[in-house]
């Protein structure tokens, strides 16, 4: 493989932008959530403070090699998704390494971080971690079903699995966006997105109340810092995926910020309205309306 230093430079720059945007967006959403609940909420720069504090903590404990590799897997997963995702269409420089794989790669690379994290948290030996993981994995299986159907539907619609080609096909006016050309698939996918971003009502995995913080229970210091870094990147990249698939992608960073914000906001909006599901409820929920819509989206293209 040739090392194209310009490409690497722009990719790293993109990563920096995405990380900070993710942190900011995270703060904004928490703030919004707090205001809906009539609280004041955190300051907008709180995520940066958390990050610096965690990376700076000098005393840390490790439960073993897998415990240490867990966050590495997790962050590799997040950054990997970023790398394989085209960010801004129209400029070769912001397409990252998406030439190495298509939508299927994105779909399965999501699991890279999840699996690694599950194992790392597993080695921590904390029962809450294991409970959190078992819930997370359970929930994720059924989240993926309507999403898969929606993706099949749009892959058939555009006759490709290449994200870049899908975005290109949506150019030339917002009426060309998938949300208007294939609304059923979009709705199914947007319902799945609620699970993907795991906000309420699908946040039993981290279950802040009774199960302190789910899989990362034992993580602290720089380990936790890595996880928080990942969360910021991941949320933006997931939103970018939906933006690319359903909302015409982005041709410049402003469009990117607007669209990812609104997509992310959708899950927060639902989250502040609906209380949390138990795990068997959330598992079944995705197999009801979202699944029916997903099947419908596919049938329409059969």
């Amino acid at each position, binding site marked *: 493989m040739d090392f194209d230093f310009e490409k690497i430079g722009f990719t790293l720059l993109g990563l920096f932008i995405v990380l900070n945007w993710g942190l900011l967006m995270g703060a904004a959403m928490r703030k919004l959530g707090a205001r809906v609940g009539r609280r004041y909420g955190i300051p907008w720069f709180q995520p940066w403070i958390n990050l610096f504090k965690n990376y700076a903590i000098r005393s*840390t404990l490790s439960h073993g090699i897998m415990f240490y590799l867990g966050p590495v897997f997790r*962050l*590799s997963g997040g950054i990997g998704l970023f790398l394989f995702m085209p960010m801004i269409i129209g400029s070769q420089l912001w397409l990252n390494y998406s030439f190495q794989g298509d939508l299927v790669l994105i779909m399965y690379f999501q*699991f890279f971080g999840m699996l690694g994290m599950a194992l790392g948290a*597993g080695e921590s030996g904390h029962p809450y971690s294991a409970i959190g993981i078992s819930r997370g994995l359970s929930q994720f299986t059924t989240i993926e079903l309507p999403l898969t159907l929606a993706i099949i539907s749009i892959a058939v619609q555009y006759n490709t699995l290449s994200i870049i080609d899908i975005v290109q096909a949506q150019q030339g006016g917002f009426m060309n966006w998938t949300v208007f050309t294939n609304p059923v698939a979009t709705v199914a996918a947007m319902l799945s997105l609620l699970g993907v971003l795991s906000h309420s009502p699908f946040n039993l995995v981290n279950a802040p109340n009774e199960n302190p913080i789910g899989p990362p229970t034992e993580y602290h210091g720089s380990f936790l810092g890595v996880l928080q870094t990942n969360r910021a990147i991941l949320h933006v990249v997931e939103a970018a995926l939906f933006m690319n698939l359903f909302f015409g992608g982005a041709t410049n960073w402003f469009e990117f910020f607007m669209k990812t914000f609104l997509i992310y906001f959708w899950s927060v909006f639902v989250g502040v309205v609906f209380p949390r599901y138990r795990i068997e409820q959330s598992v079944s929920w995705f197999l009801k309306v979202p699944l029916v819509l997903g099947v419908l989206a596919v049938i329409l293209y059969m």
Partner: protein
Amino acid sequence: MISPIHIISIGLGVSFALGFVNEKAKNLAATSMLVAIGLMGTISAAWLTALVQGAETIQIFTAGFKPPYSINLMMGLHEAFLSTLINLAGLLGGLYLLQSLKKAGNHSIMVFLVFIMGLNVIIMTRDAFNLFVFMEVVSIATAGLIILTETGKSIQAGFKYMLASGIISGMLLLGIVFAYYYSGTLNIDGLATANLTAMKSGSVAILMILISLVLELKPFPANGWALDVYEASNPGISAMLSAASATALYFVLSKIMVIANENWYYIISVAGMLTFVGSNLLGIKQDKAQRLLGYSSVGQMGLLMAILGLKPMLGDKLEFIAGTILLSHYLAKAGLFWLAGIIENENIKDWAVLRRKPILLVLFGTFLFALIGFPPFPSFYGKWELIMQLSAHQHYYILALVLLGSFFEGIYLFQWLGYAIKMDFSTLPEIKLNWNKIIPPVLFGVLVYVAGYYTSTLLPELSALNYIPLLFIVILYFIDALPIYIKNTVAILGMTIYGYQILPPLYENDMLRFIFASIFIVGGILTLIAGYAYKGKREGFYPVALLMYAGLAYIIQASNSLEFFFGWELMTAGSYFLIIRGKKSMPHGLSYMLFSIAGAYALLAGFGLIYAGTGTLALGSLASVTTNITVIFSLLAIGFMTKTASLGLHIWLPGAHAEAESDVSPMVSAILLKAGVFGLILLIVNMGHNAEAANIGYILGWLGALTALVGNLAAAFQEDAKRLLAYSSIAQLGYILFGLAMMSHLGFLTAMYYSINHFLYKAILFLTIGAVVMRVGTHMMYKMGGLIKNMPMAFIAVLIGIIALSGVPPLSGFGGKWLIYNAVLANGWYLQGAIVMFSGIIAFLYLFKLIYSIFLGQMKDNLRHVKDISIWFAIPVYILIIGIMIISAKPEWVLQPLGAMISQWYPDAALAWDGGLATGPYGYWNGNGIMITVGIMFALLATWLWMMSRKAIQVKQFNIVYSAEAPQRPETTHISYNIFAGYQKALGWIVAPKITEFWDSMTEWSHSLAHYVRQIYTGNGQLYATYVLAYIVAVYFIMIF
């Protein structure tokens, strides 16, 4: 050449002379008897040799007159062959019964000799009245022999025998009288030319003669007396009745059939079929060894009777079919009854005592397999030919009944074999082995192999068969007493040499066969390496393991369906013995075998129909089939799917794989299942182009998708690590079936890629988990935990295995997922495809559970000091991991040749390759690039985090943060049992064991039916006699209409 009349003269003469021998000179009497039978046998054998070499059939005219004025005997090829068999059975049977006969006295010895002599006469005679006389002689002798053991039961049985045979001989005599009255001759040939059927009332004579001969063969249900006889007699006598008497009487029926017309053939075949199916059905409920053998004996005679009835159709094939089946029955049944005499235990569960003398167990297995019709025994070829002929003449109902009856027979015989191999025998008494009781079964055991080999040489289709693997197995059997490391080395060397011989030419000529042969042979060698981890002798393991591999190799090399089926059955037999070696494998071995037999019969029927349609056995003829395509395709697909354990036919797999030994599980999972895949590929590439096949393909696609779903979901709910992997195999084979069913380039590419990958990672996982199980002593995951510190080698192997299996990039599994997406989109199977992808995600549940429950979390106190897995397991595992890594980094090395191979069948929509970048009809993927990108990123991040956390204090797992409470003990803190409870609540209904319940209810139904029907056998002699009469009346009425 000595005249055959001396067979009679010696028999009679010595019998009379025995009357003058002093009652105390028992040795003299017994020796004279054996010498006499030996001489009789020598005469028949001499005639047999002469006739085989082309001598003329001879007729012997007694008293110097020609028939019809005198009795005449005939010595032709059939007569010589059968009388040799009878005298051989008589000689060995006499030897076997030596003590009993001597104890009973000289008169018994005399009766035995007369019995054998009488059987010789009824074979040779051509005179109806003479036949009657000697049948009477045999009857009386039989009755005398039945009461040789003076128990209440045997005396009752003798009495019932007399009642039944009284009616029968009365009927026979009347028939002969009528026949003589109408035709004026007693000579059988004369009766045939007289054309009795055309005469007024002549058919009544025929009815009486034939019905009595049929009744002698114990047709169901008029055979209660016979079952009691088999059960109550001395086993040595039962052996004679089953092997010698039945053989002779069968021949009598066949020679007397010349006097009858077509209708009678029909009646005989119906009576025979009814007996075959009926008595094998009733055998299912039987648990007394001798009575069970009685059922089997009666059943086999029924089959032979049916075959005789099919003579108008079979023509000159009759001789081969009936001959091979009769011969197998003769050898096997005598052998089994003789074994029953050695065991001296009625209950079939007590046959576990055979394991005290392994040679007896080997004999027992040999006889059972010969009886069922497995290769390399004669009946295998006979049944094969029978099925081919039945199909060619479109006798589908009979074909189905033959297979059904054989299946019933398989149920009880393999149940019995399972008891013998697995039941506890510690409380059972020692076996006393007398030389004279062991020689006969051993000799018959050897003969049944020799006969099998000889039969195979008669078939031109098997002329190319390579016997070296089988010979190699025999060698392994003879060195079974040596320590493991020697046998293992020999086995590995043998496989290596064989691989070296067959793989390079296959690589040049036939990529498909090369791939599967590599999986079988390389996989075989790797899994055998793990065998070094075992200590002691591991008796019986190597012959059966190599038998399975030999079967697999035969399947690869087969060029016609007979060779293929030969290999298939050998593989089934070998894998059955491998599977049943597991500690708790008895029921699983049986269920594996029953599904296998049923599947094999489906294949047999399918091959038969192909033969009927194309007139050739060549495997390539699948492509030119034009008739019955739906039926053929379905039958073959079902046959192969019993091996791939597709939904509905999968219930044998979890237990069989989970309970097998640690190195056997990968053999039967990663390797054996691929035989079914290979079969499906052969089927689809040859027959898939037909529209009917494509329709079934659509169903198979759904079946594959649902198999994947159910397999993965069930795996997620397992607590037993090996069972979890077994369910995972079911699901993986579901993907493969799904891919194949698409019958497209990408579908096949998916399936082939999965086949190779599944071989790699399932072998890794099963070997590693098996090795872990050997260390920790349990399969239950919740009894383990935190083993990563003790078993880093195992952990890394499982980690690589699960990442590859899950399909997470950058390891090889992702290629499969990517291919599935493209194939599904290209083929338009969106909904099925979504189910497959959904199942792929469910796999994460069980993969996490597997690695987490065993290696992560809290450790159990009792496992704090376990060592890492045995190096002998680690070696093959890490070799396989190298394989995974190569395929992950360079998928094009595998996918390009696969694509080229598949293009010969499906050239459309192939992948385009540009270096490592694959472009399909929908997407693109660069396995190599992804590997590098992810690798670099991962390394950078790992270094970065290590830099930041390098001063972290290493603590044990139990040093964890809790909020309000403190955990009490590590073992109660490990979360593993029922970890996906929420998921089970939501989706558990999908894997409710409905299919198992269905098969259980089928079992229950057949058992209940058997139980209900067998109540007709009340044990009442008068009732049995009534049945005999009723049977005659029933046949009479049938003949009238």
